[in-house]
């Protein structure tokens, strides 16, 4: 029993994945950019509404501002080097789904799933860490009951948004309007 319990918790993504906070090549702080400066997630992760991947921004996006802002900063040296040499910055991936599970960001944004629902309070993180287990059962919790977790589509990047008392009825209306049909069959994600 104890062994089962041991593996049940310590073997699950709740323990192995939540809190994963790898060191990045550039000390980019989301707390500064997304939190204090209030930049929208989509300014950098620009293709998230169109594509399956939420792209990590290219060096050019950083240089859009940092050509003029803090152009001599030592922390930004790898970024300027990357821009000058044409060699990309090698970020360490934090939120990893296995290769056989296919996730589509744009479909979730279209439905009204907030960034914070899966990624946590990124605007409070100096270094990004994984906030949710991203396990299949965790995904299915929402897929089976989306009305608990949806929000208005124009609030998806709002980190502070809280569900109101009428969350369920509002969400059910949204589900109907947008024809939201989260797959619970294997073919939804496993190809």
């Amino acid at each position: 029993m104890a062994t089962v319990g041991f593996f049940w918790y310590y073997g699950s993504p709740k323990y192995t994945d939540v809190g994963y906070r790898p060191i990045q090549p550039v000390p980019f702080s989301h707390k500064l950019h997304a939190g204090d400066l209030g930049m929208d997630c989509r300014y950098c992760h620009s293709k998230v509404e169109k594509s399956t991947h939420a792209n990590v921004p290219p060096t050019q996006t950083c240089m859009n501002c940092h050509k003029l802002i803090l152009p001599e900063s030592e922390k930004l040296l790898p970024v300027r080097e990357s821009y000058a040499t044409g060699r990309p910055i090698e970020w360490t991936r934090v939120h990893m789904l296995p290769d056989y599970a296919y996730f589509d960001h744009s479909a979730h944004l279209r439905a009204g799933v907030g960034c914070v629902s899966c990624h946590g309070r990124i605007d409070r993180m100096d270094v990004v860490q994984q906030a949710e287990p991203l396990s299949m059962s965790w995904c299915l919790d929402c897929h089976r009951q989306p009305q608990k977790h949806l929000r208005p589509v124009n609030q998806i990047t709002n980190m502070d948004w809280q569900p109101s008392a009428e969350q369920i009825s509002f969400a059910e209306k949204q589900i109907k309007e947008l024809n939201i049909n989260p797959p619970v069959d294997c073919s939804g994600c496993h190809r």
Partner: protein
Amino acid sequence: MEDKDKFDRHGYWRSLNELAGQPEFKENLGREFPETVLEGLAGLSRRSFLGLMGASLALAGLAGCRKPVEKIIPYVTPPEEIIPGIANYYATTMPMGTDAYGVIVECHEGRPTKIEGNPRHPATRGAANAWILASILGLYDPDRSPKIIHKGLENNWNDFVAFWRELDKKYSTTGGEGLAILTEPFSSPSLFNALQMFRRRFPRALVKSWSPVNYKNSLSTLENAAPGKLKTVYSLDKAKVILSLDSDFLAAEPDNLAAAADFVKGRKVDSPLDSMNRLYVVESNYSLTGAMADHRLRLSPDHLSGFIRALAGELIRRGVNINLEPASETPSAFSFDETWIRALAEDLSAHKGEGLIRVGGTHSPELGLAVYHLNRALGNIGKTVTYYEARDTFDDNLAPENLLAKGTGDAISTLILLGVNPVYASTGDNEISSALAKIENTIHFGECFDETAEHCTWHIPAAHYLESWGDVWAADGIAGVIQPMIAPLYDGRSTVELWNLLATANDETGYEIVRRTWAGILPAADFENKWRQILHDGLLDNSASKPIEINFADESKIVINDSRATTSGKLNLVVVPDTSVFDGRFANSSWLQELPDPITKLAWDNAALVSIATAKNLNLQNGDMVRIDDSDTAVPIWIQPGISENTVVMNLGYGRTRAGRIGTGVGFNAYKLRHKKEISLEKTGGRHHFANTQEHGAMEGRAIFREANLEKYRRDPKFAEKMVEHPPLKSIFKEHSYDQGYQWGMTIDLNSCIGCGACTIACQSENNIPVVGKEQVINGREMHWIRNDRYFVGESDDPRVVIMPMACQHCENAPCESVCPVSATTHDKEGLNVMTYNRCIGTRYCSNNCPYKVRRFNFFNYTKDMPETVKMAQNPDVTVRFRGVMEKCTFCVQRINRGKQAAKKENRTVRDGEIQTACQQACPTKAISFGNILDPDSNVAQIKKSDRNYALLAELNVKPRNTYLARIRNPQPDLMQFDSDMEKE
């Protein structure tokens, strides 16, 4: 329910062993994966294996717990049009000699992964054949040469340019004396410009073209009466009676895609009131065209001319105006089947202007001319067969053994070989390699360091067409541009760039050259827009040329020779290009090598095919090695029911010695025998092991392939369903209703399927299907998700052939789902049988339970040694499977998901035809239809209402979503006795 006697009654068999009821065949039937010697010898028992595993697990501990580090590598400056995760589609054209195939290439993040046909291009019409689909693997072939080689050492392009400029200076003074080019034929304005410039600057240079398989051979005499080189366009959709004289137009002739699509238009039968065209085939080999024939006559090649003569005689008797020269010699004693020829002549003469006679393109110009005259007399010219001027075409066919022969060969001091491999592909045991050694400078331009490159002083790697700029004219003159999908992977140059250098000594990029050509063709005003339009569409609309008239100066008598008498004791040798490797250029393509030949079902091999009677006379069995004449070459025998008597057929393209890791040493070189018309065989006593898939998954006795004559169909339209009697189908479980949302289903029209195998390769390309190699194919472990099962019907030495594509039937009551212990295979609410690879533990019970045997198991880690470049060819939208995991057709669920997501984003439902499975898209005849069966207006829902619709093994109550449409044949009433096996009902 089933009775074993049904097997005999229907008369469908897959191999001679099955027909003879050999005990090995019956034994192998029970096992999906036949026993091999190795299995018997494996010492480790299951019990000890499990014991060992248990112990090692206890010792393994938690060593693998560390999270793997994955990197995300974004762009520095992103290209505007690339969105990571979304594929881009670009149009280009695949050149194959003088022919052009318009394609659309799916590119992920700047690298091409899948090729599809361009719906607007007349040569492909949205479809593709196995060669086009497999060319993506050719791009990523790890055996392509990476660097320029000069006398055995690596070199670079700039040094070559300097070298050429030296030669250019030298030859300019002599007008090109001693300079020679041997190139593969082309039909391209840019290359033609370069050729003309080269000829102007070096008037005394020898410039010749050559290809080992030349489908324009039969046109050459005709071209003497025409304004220039010809391209033929056949309108098979307008023909009601078609005669093919050894012309495999459905699979091998250059217009195969268009011919297949047009031919099948005349065979679509939706109601008993529809009429069908009729196909007569006369051939020595068994080709796919022969398999589709309503009537097939096997005739050895020595009698072909005599047959045409006899046919001409019958046509004259029916009032067709043919000015036939009387036979000069005593006619041969061979008597043709009178009834057959008479019925054929009846049909042809009754359909003047609506008939078509086609002779194989590789046949002699005399036969080509004779057939032209017959077509002309029947009024078919301009209606079903039209001639066009071949623009900018260079195709004057001089064999290398003639170019390098004593005399001309001695005068050559610099020879440039562009895209040709004469050391491998020239005919007979000639001395090309030693002739090459005598020439001071030999420059070889080709994709890999092949047999010819070994003997040349320079080797320049050729860029693949997917990496090149270029242009090419299609058959009816439609212009197409070749644009690159990716920068050249290696240090190669494209054909236009090299030609330009040779002609002008300038080193320019392909882009500049091709743009300059088109600036000369397109009107100057609005050039940029027109140029972008041509790149976007893949072709220039409204650029088709006008058909031309061929006028013969005098109305002399037509000469058709009589049958050639074969020396007794000798056999006729027929050498044909292969359906997989063509003339050998695709020998290093693992997909094409593993694709079984559609009729013989041989994979990874070729053989000397003989008929049953010939084999009996010479006491030959499958796999016996025989010596041809007195040569050292020994080839293995394969007995092929249905090829003509006294004939040996061999496929070209095998026996290569320097093709790369896949193609080297596979099969036997038929080029060395090609010059022989007659041969004798002698058993050497050796044996050869073949990988043949004909007996894999045999399904005995049951009405698998259902067909009927047109007469029977008219009398009884629902004959297909009635062929199997079964009690009412009731399930003990409560069945799902499947009445909401999308419900995916598919139909396969057996009347349209020609068995070409394009679907198999398309599926392989789209779904990352691994290649297992010859040994594993022998074990029955080939991984094709959709396969073509070939059945023979009728008497053993002159059977009919029917081909049935077989993929996962996506049964609603799937027998595989209920037996999976870990629920790795489930049913989704849209009707798909879904496979979750990560859950599969490899019990293989699902495959055991599948009545169609469409589940494929990864016995080994087939992707372990995948070369880096081949990894680039994998489709990122589909999981790459590991060892121990079962896989099968998913109805291209990645395309379904993509289609649904795209539709959702636009707040609409998926339109019919928007989601196409890879097999459906590639099929030249559009035999496969896929879509939402709940939508009454969808194509697939309407096809499923057809009378010909039947579900395979429906009596098992598996409720497959994939159904078939039975085949209808259209035999001539006078020849009905030849099809008596169909009339037993």
